[in-house]
């Protein structure tokens, strides 16, 4: 069997064995169900409102949680083996260094995607069971898109985690860098864009450039993929308001996400090839 798949299979099983996969599945299912029934509590009613509103809230929440999980699941992929003293052993086996990184990346991405599919799939099944009006094909299409884009978003951050893991000398530094990476992409990037917008006062150049600036952050691309598809009134008015006059092609958005999923990971492979052990 291909060594990449052998390593990926081992990492996937390890995530399962460490209860990562099960814990994430439960977390995702509870988040989805919680939002479905209590998401509109602020407006004074408790109970299932609409599927699209649920998905919009899930998107906002997912944009925070999924990058963090992607980073946590993989930040020690390489540096952890170095700390535990198993890295030299692995490298003495007949596999190229890039193959080791690729196997770890695919294994963790697979585990995260499986948890996303199982958790959100389960939640939607429960919603449909309890709310006959929500039993539409469109609901499944939307949640399918959500699961796909969430898995891609996870992959972006698993790739970033692999890059951090290759470049750091010990686990604690890798964990610190991972948290900084999360803070920048999830919080600071959007704040910076907002500041830019406030300072420039939304002049025409700014308005023309802004939709493209969003593509520089996979978290924003993830929001765009889901929110633009849901249409108006689904929530996150700031984002949709600013980009209302700009139509994104869904294909472009997916391609950008794919690029974001592969770029840090490819960088990690190259960096690891050059690393002295």
């Amino acid at each position, binding site marked *: 069997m291909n060594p990449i798949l052998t390593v990926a299979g081992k990492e996937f099983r390890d995530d399962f064995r460490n209860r990562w996969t099960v814990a994430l599945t439960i977390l995702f299912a509870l988040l989805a169900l919680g939002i479905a029934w209590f998401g509109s509590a602020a407006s004074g009613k408790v109970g299932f409102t609409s599927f699209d509103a649920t998905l919009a809230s899930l998107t906002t929440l997912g944009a925070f949680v999924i990058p963090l999980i992607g980073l946590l699941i993989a930040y020690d992929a390489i540096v952890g083996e170095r700390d*535990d*003293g*198993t890295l*030299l*052993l692995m490298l*003495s*086996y007949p596999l190229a260094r890039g193959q080791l990184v690729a196997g770890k990346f695919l294994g963790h991405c697979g585990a995260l995607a499986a948890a996303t599919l199982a958790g959100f799939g389960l939640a939607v099944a429960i919603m449909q069971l309890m709310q006959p009006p929500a039993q539409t094909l469109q609901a499944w299409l939307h949640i399918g898109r959500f699961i796909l884009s969430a898995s891609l978003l996870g992959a972006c951050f698993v790739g970033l985690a692999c890059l951090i893991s290759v470049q750091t000398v010990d686990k604690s530094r890798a964990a610190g860098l991972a948290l900084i990476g999360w803070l920048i992409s999830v919080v600071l990037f959007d704040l910076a864009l907002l500041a830019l917008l406030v300072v420039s006062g939304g002049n025409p150049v700014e308005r023309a450039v802004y939709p493209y600036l969003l593509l520089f952050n996979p978290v924003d691309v993830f929001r765009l993929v889901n929110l633009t598809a849901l249409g108006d009134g689904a929530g996150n008015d700031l984002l949709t308001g600013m980009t209302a006059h700009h139509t994104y092609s869904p294909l472009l958005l997916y391609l950008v996400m794919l690029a974001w999923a592969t770029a840090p990971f490819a960088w990690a492979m190259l960096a690891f090839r050059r690393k002295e052990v």
Partner: protein
Amino acid sequence: MNHAIEFEALAKRYGTLAALDGVSACVPRGQVIGLLGHNGAGKSTLIKLILGLIAPSGGRLAVLGQSPWRAHALRRCIGYLPESATFYASLSGRELLDYLARLKQAPRGQAQALLERVGLAHAADRRIGTYSKGMRQRLGLAQALLGSPELVLLDEPTTGLDPQATRELYRIVGELRADGRCVLVSSHLLAELEPHIDGALILRQGQLLAAGSLDALSEQAALPAQVLLRPREYAMPELIARLETGGLSAQPRADGRLELQVPRASKLRMLRELLTDPAVVDLDVREPTLAQLYDWLGAGDRSTAEVAA
């Protein structure tokens, strides 16, 4: 391709520091070779070069007839036991070997056979985290033998092993030799290593001090044999005087015995005389050890080298 490993003017520099500075030697197939030297002598660097994990800064290196740098297919023919090996603690011994066997494309079922060979069959399904140091080391040996490698590198394999486990390890090393494999063992424990190796590579500060078979090395060093005598108490002064006239200085030891350094050339003649000497009650001959050879070559600590000389 008579040699398992050949290197010529091999060098590895890290910045200005030379970890290996132009060493040349050959390691023949079918032999057990000791790789000796203190910490920082360049043993680990040499092992990493042989595994192809780092690129040489200069010189030529051929492992099983190929340059090993980034030749990952070549590593299917090499087994490696890292120093103080650690493994994934959450896997069982069997799971680890199955995983590594797939990576090495070793035949199915070999993992089980190896677990039995190193005496771990009873613990195969326990988590590695629960293994003792000795069991982990045996598991490490088992994984090094996956895929029946031509060349086996053992880095400090006996650190932390009890004498029983050490004997077991060298029994397996002996089986590998009988099987025609080449085994390179790095160690600090010279006395323990000595009976099990055919030759040695001795490194100091990145330089090769000596290489070759143990016989050739001791021949070259011409170290004296050490003879310990237990004289009859009243005969002691007389015996010392007699030995003095024969050109040997006897050092009395704390345990009441006399210590003689007998040159190789006159060893047998001296022993014959001593055996018939009525003043001698008991006699013990110690051949020069690898440790003494090592000191003589200057690989050891300066002070111990001077004492030996």
